């Protein structure tokens, strides 16, 4: 029976993914991953020379642990967002409400399904790509297989950590925070003076004990997570009454924006943003990638033989790029289905959300950039950083809105859409990052180059924005 449930869950996962990305796009994703695997192996020698062998291994394992945490978070916390976008979704994990199967068992099966799914669609294709790369570059296949196993274990550790956090979150968010921190601290203490994961330590030293430890840790974490799942789960008290009618007030507030978008829709979206408390979630979703970025900065500084000093302008580029996340959050607050009963078009709603992005949610990136500039003692670079951040943000968010409409998250699951997004976003970011590194050598040249790129990006922003109407006006909300 368990095998059948896992099989059905896998089918459900694939059908869910192909329902919001095109089937072609979804099935192309493993091909993209395999190509990345070939490239990673092909360029591994250069990277090892640049970064150092152990740092290179550490960073790859670190990435896989985070990938596991990300995939697990999406799996265990993502359903609420899916329901907000698509309306009610009945998934197999909800079976215990009507069938004689315990919540604990179904959650464990769901965890197993997640590992199989990601193994099949990302880890295995990456390994396959790696094998091709190994064949082309005359690298030992045995060694690569061992490395693949080590990476998979790191991924599974990240996944089991997300599973534990979700089980603790069922108790309360405070428990999940406390429990999560405790696990991280214990783990950090246990790996002192060794590689970032026990599986990597096994790969480096060949000591089978470390392989056993890495598997035991996963079993321990996932067993604890499973035991914490109970059948009686009651949500904490939610606010049900006492909302003041604010629509008219907001329509009045945004009446000046009528040439940009419909003030009524802006008002509705503004209220959604406020009452769903998405602003707080946006804030934390910014803190997470920025934390990783800061860590990478520190890591590269430590690993590279030359000193690279990422400055406020570089962070301006990155934070501007993360604007996509804010726009994506705005698309997850509530299902747009109701709009289909009204004389409004998809483009009206997109423009209202863009308006909110450019006016209401800018405090989040601005706050982060100011904080980074202050901590780096680069307040003098802050105005320039802000200009760069706004330009990059406008460019990337207008492109995201134009290309993905109201379904940003699901559209980016489509390999073709993702590839286009990559092509549009990465080159200007690399160019601006490289230019920002030269700020201490020739300020005037950097200013000219940045102004030029910002000008081009602003023109493209207008181009994408103006195309939104044509592309989305006659699309349906369905």
């Amino acid at each position, binding site marked *: 029976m368990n095998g059948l449930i896992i099989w059905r869950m896998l089918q459900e996962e694939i059908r869910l993914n192909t329902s919001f990305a095109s089937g072609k796009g979804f099935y192309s994703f493993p091909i993209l991953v395999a190509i990345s695997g070939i490239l990673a192996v092909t360029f591994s020698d250069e990277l090892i020379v640049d970064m150092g062998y152990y740092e290179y291994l550490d960073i790859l394992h670190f990435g896989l642990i985070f990938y596991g945490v990300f995939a697990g978070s999406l799996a265990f916390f993502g359903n609420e967002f899916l329901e*907000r976008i698509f*309306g*009610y979704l009945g998934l197999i994990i909800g079976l215990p409400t009507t069938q004689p199967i315990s919540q604990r068992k179904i959650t464990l099966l769901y965890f197993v399904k997640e590992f199989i799914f990601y193994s099949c669609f990302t880890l295995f294709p990456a390994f396959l790509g790696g094998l091709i790369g190994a064949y082309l570059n005359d690298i030992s296949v045995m060694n690569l297989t061992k490395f693949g196993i080590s990476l998979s274990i790191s991924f599974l550790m990240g996944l089991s950590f997300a599973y534990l956090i979700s089980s603790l979150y069922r108790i309360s968010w405070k428990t999940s925070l406390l429990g999560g921190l405790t696990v991280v601290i214990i783990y950090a203490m246990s790996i002192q003076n060794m590689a970032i994961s026990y599986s990597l330590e096994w790969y480096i030293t060949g000591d089978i004990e470390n392989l056993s430890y890495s598997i035991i840790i996963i079993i321990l974490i996932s067993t604890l997570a499973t035991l914490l799942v109970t059948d009686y789960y009651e949500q904490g008290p*939610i606010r*049900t*009454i*006492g*909302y*003041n*009618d*604010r*629509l*008219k007030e907001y*329509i009045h507030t945004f009446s000046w924006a009528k040439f940009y978008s*419909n003030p*009524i*829709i802006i*008002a*509705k979206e503004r*209220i*959604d943003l406020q*009452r*769903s408390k998405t602003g707080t979630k946006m804030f934390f979703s910014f803190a997470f990638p920025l934390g990783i970025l800061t860590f990478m900065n520190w890591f590269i500084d430590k690993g590279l033989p030359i000193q690279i000093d990422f400055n406020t302008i570089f962070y301006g580029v990155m934070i501007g790029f993360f604007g996509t996340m804010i726009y994506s959050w705005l698309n997850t*607050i*509530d*299902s747009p*289905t*109701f709009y*289909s*009963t*009204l*004389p*409004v*078009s998809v483009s009206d709603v997109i423009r209202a959300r863009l308006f909110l992005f450019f006016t209401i949610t800018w405090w989040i990136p601005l706050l982060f950039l100011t904080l980074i500039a202050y901590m780096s003692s680069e307040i003098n670079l802050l105005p320039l950083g802000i200009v760069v951040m706004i330009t990059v943000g406008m460019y990337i968010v207008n492109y995201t809105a134009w290309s993905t409409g109201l379904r940003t998250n699901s559209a980016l699951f489509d390999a073709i859409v993702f590839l286009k997004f990559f092509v549009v976003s990465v080159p200007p970011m690399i160019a601006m990052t490289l230019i920002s590194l030269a700020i201490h050598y020739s300020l005037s040249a950097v200013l000219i180059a940045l102004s030029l790129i910002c000008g081009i990006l602003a023109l493209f922003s207008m181009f994408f924005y103006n195309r939104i109407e044509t592309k989305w006006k*006659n699309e*349906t*909300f*369905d």
Partner: protein
Amino acid sequence: MAVISCSEVSKKYDDVLALDSVNLVIKKGEFFGLLGPNGAGKTTLLKILTGQIKTTEGNADILGMNIENNVTEVKRKIAIVPEQESPPSFLTPREVLEMVSSIRQIDKPKIDYWIEFFELETMEGRVCRNLSRGQKQKVMLAAAFISETNLMFLDEPFINLDPIVQTKVRDWLVTYVNEGGTVFLNTHLLENAQRLCDRAAIIHKGKIQSLIKMNELEEQKMNLEDLFHEIVL
């Protein structure tokens, strides 16, 4: 005057033919029912007629306008209650009605009247996310009724409503049609259809199988349920 007209309308979802060359004309002032078993194509046709999805083939006009070329204009002139109750999660019922009347530019909207009509006063200050399914359905109906349009599309509007509100809604719809409005009602509740509709179509496997005038059915002393079973089974 025809307010709804479909000519050879077909809709395909991958390999599934949900609608197969549907032809239909509905005149102003009619109470029209579209009946059929689950999965017959009722909601698909309603979604096409209200501009929520596009046809694969054929042409559909509402109030003389081609829907696909005039989606927003068509929606301005019709009211819709979709199959699934989905009022905005984070607005209160009053805010939903305020939003609808603002978007539709209704002068002096009767918000208090509809709140009272649907007994939503006790829900004031609650956001729709926290309402029961029946209460959400009431908000959807209120949002349609406040729209002051002359053409109304209702997809299973009585589901989840308590009997008292069902009666009120039925009575209001009869008055609405008597005053010149047109109703397109999707339902599989045959009793409601027989009680309310002037004319009905039975759809099965994506095809209109029969067009029925209720008075003729009565004259022939036939029962809608028997006819339905005869066609569908």
